[in-house]
């Protein structure tokens, strides 16, 4: 960092540079500049090759149409116009909005609760508890879904067997209304631990002096949690919410795998991502899929921005 500032300073202010002849100084700087660029170069190469190029290519694809008969032709924004009136896409987006409104508050709420409980220092077996809650995050999503798929199973799953033994019949995990909640439960199971760790780490960075001061003022632990801890980790909370928003709209693995168990409940367009996948690989319409993916990106950006904006306003008000 000092090298970048160095050139702007008068040479005299820096004793060590003042006695060196100018050419050598530039050479040293050049070397340092060179090293800096060399160090960030791998990142940019991979970033351009793996992010920018595919994005530009997808954008390029999205303004064409390819038909089995007639081949490829320029379509302008036709694919986008089709997408914003496509009931399958819109239903998927709406379904994910419902998912977001119900699942994310539950997940973040529980993660926050666990983080506060662990941070309170009043728990026994805190390390063990922390690990147990976090472990599901280490389980790959595919494995988690297969496991839950078995547990949910309407014929041989343990819940179904208990339900049948009690004469209640199998629980409605795979019914059209039940499915969304079944998926929410899997996602909660997978990600509460992850969000808890993020929030817990944020809690650890709050200065302990604040707690001491609060206690001197006679605040209860609850009051400390509400008035010091939660406001103190607002940035962490915002981060987890934004990650969750993005994760929700990109939901793919869980419905894709549960489809084998309930193929008529989870259709090809159950989530927008699943729809884009099926449009690309079943309908063989990579162009329209690219447009759908771009639109989905826009939706995610808008909602993430709104979340951030809302948080900032709140901050200003308080």
């Amino acid at each position, binding site marked *: 960092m000092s090298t970048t500032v160095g050139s702007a300073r008068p040479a005299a202010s820096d004793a060590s540079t003042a006695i060196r002849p100018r050419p050598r100084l530039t050479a040293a700087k050049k070397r340092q500049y060179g090293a800096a660029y060399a160090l960030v170069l791998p990142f940019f190469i991979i970033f351009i090759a793996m992010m920018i190029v595919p994005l530009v290519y997808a954008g390029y694809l999205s303004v064409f149409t390819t*038909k*089995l*008969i*007639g*081949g490829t032709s320029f379509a302008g924004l036709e694919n986008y116009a089709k997408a914003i009136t496509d009931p399958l896409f819109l239903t998927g987006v709406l379904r994910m909005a419902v998912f977001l409104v119900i699942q994310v508050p539950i997940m973040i709420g529980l993660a926050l609760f666990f983080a506060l409980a662990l941070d309170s220092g009043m728990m026994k077996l805190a390390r063990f508890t922390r690990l147990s809650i976090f472990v599901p995050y280490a389980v790959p999503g595919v494995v988690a879904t297969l496991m839950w798929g*078995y547990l949910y*199973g*309407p*014929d*041989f799953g343990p819940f179904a067997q208990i339900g049948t033994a009690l004469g209640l019949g199998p629980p409605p995990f795979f019914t059209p209304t039940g499915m969304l909640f079944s998926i929410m439960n899997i996602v909660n199971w997978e990600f509460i631990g992850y969000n808890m760790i993020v929030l817990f780490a944020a809690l650890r960075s709050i200065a302990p002096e604040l707690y001491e001061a609060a206690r001197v003022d006679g605040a209860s632990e609850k009051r400390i949690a509400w008035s010091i801890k939660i406001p103190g980790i607002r940035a962490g909370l915002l981060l987890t919410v934004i990650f969750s928003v993005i994760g929700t709209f990109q939901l793919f693995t869980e419905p*894709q*795998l549960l*489809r*084998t*168990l*309930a*193929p*008529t*409940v989870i*259709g*090809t367009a159950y989530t927008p991502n699943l729809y884009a996948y*099926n449009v690309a*690989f*079943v*309908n*063989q319409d990579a162009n329209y899929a690219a447009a759908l993916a771009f639109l989905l990106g826009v939706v995610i950006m808008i909602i993430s921005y709104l979340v951030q904006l809302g948080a900032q306003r709140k901050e200003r008000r308080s």
Partner: protein
Amino acid sequence: MSSAPFTRRKFLLSTAAATSSAMFLAACGGGGEEAPPAQSSASAIPQSEIDKAMDTETTLTFWTWVPDIKNEVKLFTDKYPKIKVDLLNLGGGAHYQKMRTAIQSRQGAPDVTQVEFQYINSFTVGEGSLLDLTPYAPPTLKDSYADWIWSQVNFNGGLWGIPQDSGPMGLLYREDLLSDAGIEVPKTWDDYAAAAETYHSKNPKSYLTNVAPNSGGQFVAYLWQAGVRPFSFDGKETVKVDLANEEAKKVAKFWGDMVTAGTLSNKPDGNDAWYQAVANGTYASWPAAAWGPVFLQGTAAKTSGKWRTADLPQWDASTVVAGNWGGSTDAVLKLSKNPIAAAQLALFINTNKESALKFANEQFLFPVLNEILTDPTFLNKEFKFYGGQKVNEKFAQISETVSPDFGWLPFMDYVYTNFQETLGKAFADKTDAVAGLQAWQDACVKYAKDQGFTVT
């Protein structure tokens, strides 16, 4: 594509382990008589050119999902030592996707590739990427197959692949369960419906069979048997989609009515719950293809000896007609730089008797060649799992009753997937199956029009 319809391909993958134990018999050089005779036809490749190509150092790439196919390929490379074959097994769902990608990018595509009957048209549409094998094949090749098999590969003025295996449909049933319920093996579909009702009333927790809402392939095979010809493609721009005609409605209503009445179950198949249900006797029969018997042996081993095979029940009691469910070919891509050698590979492994017999007896692919369908080592095999029944013989008879000229659309992937959202959904939700059939028809027509086809 884990939710794709239940196909032979999946079956092969799931039984790969079982079949891989088949011993490899050292090949001792094929006889010379397989070489196609010299041809006078202008378009045919002269024998001298074939001989030259087969005596030139060449490397062919072959994409397939068939387990242990290296054994058949070895017979070929033993006969033509200058030809080297690189085998690539891409497994299940990725096969066609990777083919399409390779064809589109015009690099890395195989010379020879496995293609199922119903997907051939998706590779002949537009510019077309399959090589017409007519000039490469002996003119008498047609005589080696039943008409219905030949019509699956030879249409729209080309021979698009060399048939490898097929799936004529029969009825697999639990002999013990049916006789316990006092039910005769149903001869007609009316009998079958009556049997379904009787069976379920006597065994409230089990069913005569299951109507899978995700098995579009099976339903299409039912249509095939009923004489419905819902699809055709002229090789250019015109398709016919006729899924909702009266005959098809009859078939949809037949299954839909039993599902709605609750005498048949409506669970998705091809998943663990279904395998368990088959193994524990929840289903007393399964209308399945010729690859079904070996498949059941693997998944329901503990029910060994209790199964039997019969003809499918009939719509018209006076005749016996079957449909076909699954089957594949080896095709050559136009992109191949060695079309002669590639075509010879596809021809050899599927028409050389030793090789074709290996497919039938070791990999349990149901044969397509007349020569194998009448071979005693194949026919006389007794299956313990089927109480000693000569199952191959039964299916060989059934194969003769498959009705010919069943065509396909160039986008069967969409047709099968959409089945789950329309007719399959009607089965799952116990709603009007005929309305579901109509919705399926409408969706397929719309897709065809969106893709630029003329729909008749």
